[in-house]
C-alpha cells in the first residue's frame, strides 16, 4: 500500500453515517486524517439546546473511535450571507430555491475548502454520493454516485473545476447499504443513526412556521385559471408548483379530482389552482434557465446538443435538447416529452450518461410558446 501518512485529508464530518465512514476509510488507507464539523446555523432554543450539539457529539465519538483529531468551525455568518439571504430573496420572488445547491457552492466547497487549505490539507473529503474522474490533462469530471437512489450530483452541479480539484468522495462508488455495513462492522457510533431529511437548517420543523419567522405571510385568494375563487392561501411562498397537500379545497369542482397548485400570480397575490394530477397547466414542454455552470469545458458539445436532465433532486432523467446562447449566459431546454411541475428557482441539471455536465437555475417554464404562470 502506498504511504499516505504525509498526505493530509480534511474530512467534512456532519455527525452522519456517510461522513463517518469516509473518515474511517481514509484512516484505514493510512492518510493523515483530520475531521472538521461545520456549524452553519444557530438555532439555539430558549432552553439553550442547539441541535448541532448532538451532531458534534457524534463527530467526537466517531473521531475518537477512528483515532483522528477533530475540530469544529463556525460558518454561520457565511451561511447567512451567502445561502440564507438568497433563499429568502428567492421566496420573496415567488420562486422555490434550492439552498443545498447554494450551500455546496458557497459554504462546503468554498468557505470550508478555504479553511481546510488553511490547515494544510492536501485533499478535502466529503461524504457525498458522487464520483470524480480526472483526465490526463487534469480536467475533472463529476460522475453520478454508484447508488442511483442516493446520487447527489444534483446538489454539486454548480461547482467549478477549482472547487473540485482537491476533493475526494470516498463513498461515491458505494451503495448506501455497504456504507451502513462498514459503519456497523467498524462499530462506529453513527452506524444506525437516521439519515437527515429536509433542508438542513429547518430540519424536522414545520416549514410554513419557519418561513413566517423571516418573511411576513401575505394571505390571498386561491383562484382557478378562469378566475373562480376557491379559497384562501397563506402566502404564495408556502406553495410550490404541482403541490397537492394543504390546499383544503373539497371536491366542488367540475370533477371529483383533487386540487393542485398550477401557478402563481405574484402581482395579484393569487394562487392558481386546478384539478387533476395531470392538469394540463402542470405540463411544460420547455424551460429557460440562467446562472449556468459547466463543470468541465463543453466545447465538444457545441451550443446545441441532446442530453438528459433532472429538474428536481431524485427525479428520473428526461431526454432534452439544449440550446445555449453565445456567451453561455442563458439556456433554452426543450423536453423530449412534456414534464410535470417544472419549478422556477430549482436547478436544471444536465447529464451525459454517468457524467454530470453542469446546471442552471430555472427561470420560466413554457407550454409550446406560452409561458406558464409559475411566478
Amino acid at each position: 500500500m502506498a504511504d499516505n501518512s504525509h498526505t493530509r485529508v480534511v474530512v467534512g464530518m456532519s455527525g452522519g453515517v456517510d461522513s463517518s465512514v469516509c473518515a474511517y476509510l481514509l484512516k484505514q488507507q493510512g492518510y493523515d486524517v483530520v475531521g472538521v464539523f461545520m456549524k452553519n446555523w444557530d438555532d439555539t432554543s430558549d432552553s439553550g439546546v442547539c441541535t448541532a450539539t448532538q451532531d458534534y457529539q457524534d463527530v467526537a465519538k466517531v473521531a475518537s473511535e477512528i483515532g483522528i483529531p477533530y475540530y469544529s468551525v463556525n460558518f454561520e455568518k457565511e451561511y447567512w450571507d451567502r445561502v440564507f439571504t438568497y433563499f429568502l430573496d428567492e421566496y420573496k420572488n415567488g420562486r422555490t430555491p434550492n439552498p443545498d445547491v447554494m450551500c455546496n457552492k458557497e459554504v462546503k466547497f468554498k468557505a470550508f475548502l478555504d479553511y481546510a487549505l488553511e490547515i494544510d490539507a492536501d485533499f478535502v473529503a466529503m461524504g457525498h454520493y458522487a464520483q470524480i474522474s480526472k483526465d490526463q490533462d487534469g480536467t475533472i469530471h463529476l460522475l453520478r454516485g454508484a447508488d442511483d437512489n442516493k446520487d447527489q450530483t444534483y446538489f454539486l452541479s454548480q461547482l467549478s473545476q477549482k472547487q473540485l480539484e482537491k476533493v475526494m468522495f470516498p463513498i461515491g462508488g458505494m451503495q448506501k447499504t455497504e456504507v451502513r455495513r462498514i459503519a456497523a462492522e467498524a462499530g462506529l457510533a453513527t452506524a444506525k443513526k437516521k439519515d437527515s431529511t429536509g433542508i438542513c437548517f429547518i430540519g424536522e420543523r414545520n416549514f410554513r412556521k419557519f418561513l413566517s419567522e423571516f418573511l411576513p405571510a401575505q394571505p390571498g385568494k386561491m383562484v382557478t385559471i378562469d378566475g373562480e375563487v376557491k379559497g384562501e392561501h397563506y402566502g404564495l411562498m408556502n406553495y410550490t408548483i404541482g403541490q397537492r397537500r394543504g390546499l383544503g379545497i373539497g371536491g366542488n369542482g367540475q370533477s371529483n379530482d383533487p386540487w393542485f397548485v398550477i401557478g402563481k400570480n405574484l402581482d395579484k397575490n393569487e394562487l392558481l389552482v386546478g384539478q387533476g394530477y395531470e392538469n394540463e397547466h402542470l405540463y411544460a414542454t420547455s424551460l429557460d434557465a440562467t446562472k449556468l455552470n459547466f463543470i468541465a469545458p463543453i466545447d465538444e458539445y457545441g451550443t446545441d446538443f441532446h442530453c438528459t436532465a433532472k429538474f428536481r433532486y431524485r427525479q428520473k432523467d428526461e431526454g432534452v435538447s439544449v440550446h445555449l446562447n453565445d456567451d453561455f449566459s442563458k439556456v433554452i431546454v426543450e423536453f423530449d416529452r412534456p414534464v410535470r411541475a417544472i419549478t422556477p428557482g430549482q436547478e436544471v441539471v444536465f447529464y451525459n450518461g454517468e457524467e454530470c455536465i453542469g446546471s442552471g437555475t430555472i427561470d420560466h417554464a413554457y407550454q409550446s410558446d406560452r409561458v406558464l404562470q409559475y411566478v
Partner: protein
Amino acid sequence: MKYIYLDNAGTTPMATEVIDKMKETMKDTFGNASATNYYGRQARMVLDNCRHVIARSINAQNDNEIIFTSGGSESDNTAIIGTAAARQNVGKHLITTCIEHEAVLKPMHFLESRGFEVTYLPVDQNGEISLSDLKQALRDDTILVSIMTGNNEVGSKMPIHEIGEIVAESNAWFHTDAVQAYGLLDIDVQADQIDLLSTSAHKLNGPKMTGFLYCRTDHNYEALIKGGDQELKRRAGTENIPAIAGFAEAVKINSSEKKAAHRKAYYAFKHQLVDGLRQNGIEVEVNGKIDEGELSHVLNLWFKGKKSDALLTNLDLKGISASAGSACTAGSLEPSHVLTAMYGEKDPRISESLRFSFGAFNTSADISAVIQALTEIIKR
C-alpha cells in the same frame, strides 16, 4: 510528536507531590470525616490540617472561613446566589463587571430573572474597571459586589485593595473570583477587606472538581447544596479527603517565593513570545497590556488578519495546545465577551486572537517552539 501545553489558565497538570499525596491519602484515609469512629477521626484530622494550610494561604482570620467546594464554579454560584438568598431583605441590587467568568455572569443572569437588579461595570481597552464607576453604581440596596481578582482571558488585574476599601464603606459584601489569581499572587483577605473569595485547585497543579470558598466569619450565606451538616452546614456532601489533601499540598508547595519566581518567568515568556513573533515579521498586538501588574500567566494576542479557529487548529495539529475564548456545545468558537467588552463587537480582534497561558512546567524552549510553529503557519 512533541506536545507543548500552553493552556494553563484552562487547567494545569498535577504536580508530582500532589499525586503522591493523593495516592497516600486514598490508601490510608478513606474514612468519612463526619463519622465518630476511628476512621472518621483520621479523615477529620487530614481535613482540619488541610483547612488550616489553606486558611493561612490567604491570611483568613480562622480556619472555619474556608468551605471546601467542587471548585470555582460552585464557589462563585454559592457566593452570589447564596448571598442574594440570605440578603434579599437588605436589598436586591448587585454589581459585577462585563468580563467576569461565566460562573459569575450566569448566576447574575439567573438572579435577574428572579427580580434582582444587576449593574455590569464596563471595562477599558486594558480590561480594567474604573473605581468611580463602581462608586457611582453602589446604592443603599446593593448587597453584593462581585469583581474578579484577575481575568482569565486577557490577564487584566483589578484594583482589589481599592475595591475592598470602597465596598467596606457600603452595605454590600465584596466577593472576588480569584480562580486565576490564587496560584500566582499572595492574597490577603483581611488587608483587602474581602468578604467572599472563590478558588479552584486545578488551576495550580491540584486536582479537578476541588476548590474552596472563603467566607468571612461574621457573614452567612444560604447554602446551595443542602443535606448533611458538613462544612458547618454551608456545603453538604461527604468531603473528598484525597482531593482536598492534594489541593492543600498544591498550596503548600506553591510558596510566596515560588509564586514570585513564576511571575517573573511568565512575564519573560510574554516578552519572548511577542518579541520573537515580531522579529519574524508576524503582525501581532497584545489584547490588554503586558505589565508586571497584570496576571503574568495569561497572554492574549491579536494576529491581524488571521482567523482564530484556523490558527488554533493549525497549532494543535503541530502539537501545541493554546486556546481562543470558549467553545459552544457544538465545539465552535464563540465570540469572547471579554474582548467584546474591551474593544466593541465589530473589532477584528474578536475573531483573530489566541490566548496563551503559562504554567509551572513550561520552559523558554517551549516558547521558542511556539514562535517557530506560528511563524511557519502564518507565513505558509
